[in-house]
């Protein structure tokens, strides 16, 4: 009984992890396709590491496969570092190198400030953090 409860809990954790990735991807597509915010280069890199997570995590749900962590965690960690770098750039901690002006989008362009302080790069960092947290919890639970 406890064994089956444990299994259920593991599945739930992975499902929540997938849900966070799904909501983030939907939100990012909403920003670019509906609100027509052009994604900057760093946003594209974060998307590259976010979008496959939806497929990989979903594949790990049916049937539940604990080794999904092994494949998903590297993506999430690289995505997290990209998001962290983007936030530092956005906040002005790292200066954006002097580049000639192009029609492309600057990575420090301000699009939205939810509640006055939540920016898009911050949302990205938040979702990668939650995904990593869930994956690590799952890893600990399954390797005991």
């Amino acid at each position: 009984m406890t064994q089956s409860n444990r299994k259920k809990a593991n599945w739930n954790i992975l499902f929540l992890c997938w849900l966070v990735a799904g909501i983030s991807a939907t939100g990012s597509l909403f920003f670019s396709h509906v609100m027509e915010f052009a994604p900057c280069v760093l946003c594209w890199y974060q998307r590259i590491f976010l979008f496959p997570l939806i497929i990989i995590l979903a594949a790990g749900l049916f049937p539940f496969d604990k080794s999904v962590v092994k494949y998903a965690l590297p993506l999430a960690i690289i995505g997290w570092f990209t998001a962290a770098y983007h936030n530092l750039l956005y906040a002005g901690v790292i200066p954006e190198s002097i580049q000639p002006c192009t029609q492309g989008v600057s990575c420090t362009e301000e699009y939205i400030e939810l509640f006055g302080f939540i920016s898009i790069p911050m949302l990205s960092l938040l979702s990668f953090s939650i995904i990593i947290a869930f994956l690590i919890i799952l890893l600990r639970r399954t390797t005991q």
Partner: protein
Amino acid sequence: MKTHLIFGLSVIGLILAFAVGSSYYKGKQAEKIGFLAQENAELFVRDHSQTMGSDDAKVYLIEFMDPACETCAAFSPLVKQMIVTNPGKIKLVLRYAPFHDGADYFVKILEAAKKQGKYWETLNVMYKTQPYWASHHNPQPQRIWQFLPQAGVDMERIRKDMNDPAIAKLIDQDLADAKTLNVRKTPGFFVNGKPLQTFGSKQLLQLVQSELKANYPN
């Protein structure tokens, strides 16, 4: 089985949230711009803007364009045809959104040609010869000069007039208005201040038709 259900419902939920969110957002945006149009008509039509069609027309078709934009060139016959088939009812207003690298060079030539009364001729030549000078991987703006004589313009005067600081100012004004109106792509169309919701020739025709019907009920 239950897990499949939870997963499937979540997928549907995400897709629904996206769809509902988009239609809500687009409705809000249309309201906002429509309101702006009444209050700030000059955002859409500036005194310097090139226009085609009768001053008495009740349907204003505003196009934010870029001489180096392929889609603008492709849309130009359609736009002209709409004006010709509805004589006196549609007025075309051209605004500049030179998003392509170096495209303001061609806007300057156009504005210089305007001083000689050869605006539409020059624009026609530009659109027609665009593939020769505006290729994306290798733009060669200087090549436009070999085609300009087709428009019947005085080349020396163009070279002199295109550096007029007033032209640069006018481009800045148009770009500022494009930003205010959330134009990020060219061509960006507005009909009587209403933005084209989804891009396409059919959608543009529909929007113009609905405005024609609203303003000319008979």
